[in-house]
């Protein structure tokens, strides 16, 4: 595949879609993970912290 005018085959489009879905799922899991970590580490008093 050259850097210019790269034309993807059907197979390449399919695998790219698979990778895109995997990256989207991973990002979603990370968001959920950091949300859960925040709640577990800081607890329900997270909103009652002094400014």
């Amino acid at each position, binding site marked *: *595949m050259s850097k210019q005018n790269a034309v993807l085959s059907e197979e390449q489009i399919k695998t790219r879609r*698979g*990778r895109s879905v995997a990256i989207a799922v991973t990002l979603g899991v990370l968001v959920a993970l950091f949300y859960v970590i925040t709640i577990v580490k800081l607890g329900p008093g997270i909103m009652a912290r002094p400014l």
Partner: protein
Amino acid sequence: MLEQTQGLHEDATDLGGRGRVSDYIALLKPRVMSLVVFTAAVGLVMAPGNQHPVLSFISIFCIAVGGGASGALNMWWDADIDAVMSRTKMRPIPAGKITRQEAFSFGIVLSFGSVLTLGLVANWVAAGLLAFTIFFYVVIYTMWLKRCTPQNIVIGGAAGALPPMVGWAAVTGDVTLVSIALFMITFTWTPPHFWALALVKSDDYQKAGVPMLPVVAGETATRYQIVLYSLLLLPVGMSPYFLGFASVFYGVGSAILGLVFLSYGIRVWRVREGDAAKKTAMSLFRFSLFYLMLIFAGLLAENMVSLV
């Protein structure tokens, strides 16, 4: 390192983009990862302290991803010798499914991600130990020792032995005699485990120019070393009992397992010719996996029982 660089035949204009999700999962060495998860979980469960179960679960996840990242970086560096060896030539890079650059980027992102997340979730001692594990496996073992000394897997085995220490540190934030004992079990187990495989695959290693012990010192010396390490593994495997953090049941069980391991080692020493020799070496290789699983399962079971 020079040989490694010269061994690359990748087209510089290859932009990649052919890899499936399953190829990226293969880069993480899932089978090695399962061992990492299991031994790290045992270290975490055995550690004294109260860590929230959700944080424990995420800590194990981070250790698993860190272990997988070092596998990907190992494949990035070793792509040239992987292509030569029958056992590894179907890995994603030599098979042409993923480029070295893609594997490198994947490994680096996961390495930093797992270490930083573990630091935030557990503590920075555990994160530091995980970073050291990745560094040791990739730089000390893969880049340096693997291609220059027959003691490669003896010293490099430290990387595979560290996960229970990381699991322990995730709860306590320290390194103690107990976690060192857990480390020593896998560390002592690694040489006979890998040398049994190397006896069967010595032609492969010779072809790839990897100075494994059977290639450099010969099969007799390797068999002698296997018996020696099997003998050493017997008391090391029992050390949790000797140090007082496992019961007499574990002590007896680990002694029996250690003696069976030794008997397999002695059989490898005695049977040296033809297919029978290869079969005996493979039997030791398979039993060694079973041994490590049972030793750590025993420790896990004892701790689970004491928690109830």
